C-alpha cells in the first residue's frame, strides 16, 4: 500500500510513502523467517475474539471470563530512504485468522506466497486468495534441507499458475536469497502497473484512424 503525503510534513521531514507487501503461506513454511532475514521484525498486537476454534489452543484456566485475546503479528520494515518504507506483513497461517487477511490485503502492493514442496497443498488457499482478488504475487519455494528439488516449471504447473506469475526457489534464512524474492515481486508489480509516462507515450494522440477496407 502506498501512503502518500502530497504536502511536505509540518516537521520538515520528507513526505512519507509506505508500501505494504504480504508474506503468506501455510503454517511453519518460513514466513517469519523471511520477514526476519530481510528486515527487523517488530510485533504488532491485535485483538481476536475467542471462539470455539481457539479453545484447544488458548488455555483459559483461571481467566474464564476472557472473551478476547491479543494476537501478536509480525511485521518488518525496510527503509528504502527517508520517507520511503516497505512494510512486510506475515499473514497468520492458521485458519482461525482468515478474518485478518482482508484488512491486510487492502491496498497491498503485492504478496509473496511461500511454498514447501513437501506439503505444497498448504499454499493453495493463499494462491487462490490472491488470484481471486487480482493481487500480484510471486511464489517463493522455500528450499528446506532434505526436501526434493523441483524445477520451477513443475511447481508452476502443480499450482496451475498464470504463466506470468513468477516462481522463485530460495532459502528464507538467507538475507540475499530473501531479497531476490522481494525484488522479483516488485519487478512483477512494475509490469502490472505501467508507469503513467509509458501509458501516455503509448497513445500520444488517442486512437489512430483505422484504414478502411477496400471494396
Amino acid at each position: 500500500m502506498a501512503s502518500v503525503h502530497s504536502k511536505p510534513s509540518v516537521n520538515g521531514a520528507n513526505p512519507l510513502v509506505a508500501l505494504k507487501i504480504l508474506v503468506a503461506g501455510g503454517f511453519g513454511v518460513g514466513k517469519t523467517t523471511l520477514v526476519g532475514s530481510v528486515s527487523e521484525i517488530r510485533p504488532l498486537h491485535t485483538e481476536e475474539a475467542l471462539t470455539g476454534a481457539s479453545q484447544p489452543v488458548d488455555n483459559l484456566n483461571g481467566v474464564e471470563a476472557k472473551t478476547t485475546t491479543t494476537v501478536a503479528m509480525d511485521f518488518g520494515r525496510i527503509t528504502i530512504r527517508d520517507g520511503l518504507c516497505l512494510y512486510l506483513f506475515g499473514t497468520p497461517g492458521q485458519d482461525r485468522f482468515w478474518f485478518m487477511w482482508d484488512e491486510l490485503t487492502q491496498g497491498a502492493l503485492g504478496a509473496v506466497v511461500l511454498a514447501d514442496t513437501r506439503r505444497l497443498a498448504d499454499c493453495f488457499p493463499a494462491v487462490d486468495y490472491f488470484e481471486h482478488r487480482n493481487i500480484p504475487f510471486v511464489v517463493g519455494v522455500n528450499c528446506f534441507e532434505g526436501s526434493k528439488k523441483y524445477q520451477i516449471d513443475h511447481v508452476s504447473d502443480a499450482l496451475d499458475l498464470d504463466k506470468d506469475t513468477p516462481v522463485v526457489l530460495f532459502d528464507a534464512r538467507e538475507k540475499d536469497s530473501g531479497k531476490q524474492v522481494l525484488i522479483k515481486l516488485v519487478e512483477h508489480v512494475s509490469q502490472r502497473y505501467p508507469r503513467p509516462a509509458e501509458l501516455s507515450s503509448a497513445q500520444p494522440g488517442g486512437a489512430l484512424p483505422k484504414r478502411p477496407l477496400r471494396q
Partner: protein
Amino acid sequence: MSDSTPQWYDDEAGPLVRLYAMTAGRARSVGETSLDLMATIEASPMVPDAPMLSPEKLTLLRICQRLPQTVTDIASEAGLPLGVVRVLLGDLLGAGYITISHPIQPTQLPDSHILKEVLDGLRAL
C-alpha cells in the same frame, strides 16, 4: 522469581489496565471508518497543552510528534493492540491533535519512480 512476594498478575492475565478502560468501553472509533494500517499520522503543528489526555493518548501523541508515522508503527511502538490505538487516534483526531493522511492504492502511485527506487533500494540492502 527471587522476590518472596508472589506476583499477583502476569502476562497471561492481560494488561493491568484493561483495554476497555483505555477506550472508555469503545471497540470502534467515533465516526470515521477504521484507520488503515498504512495511514500516516502527523501531530498538528500547534498542539495545545494536553493536560487532560490519558497516559495512553499522550504516548501516541509523543510517538507521532517526532515524525509522521504509520498506524502500524505507532501501535507497535506503543505496545498497544491495534483496535485500541485506532480508537485513541480517532479521539486525538477529533480533538485536533493529529492529522491523518489516507493511503492511496498502488494503482494510483503518483510517482512512477517509486517502484524503481524500491528495486534499487532492495538490491542495495
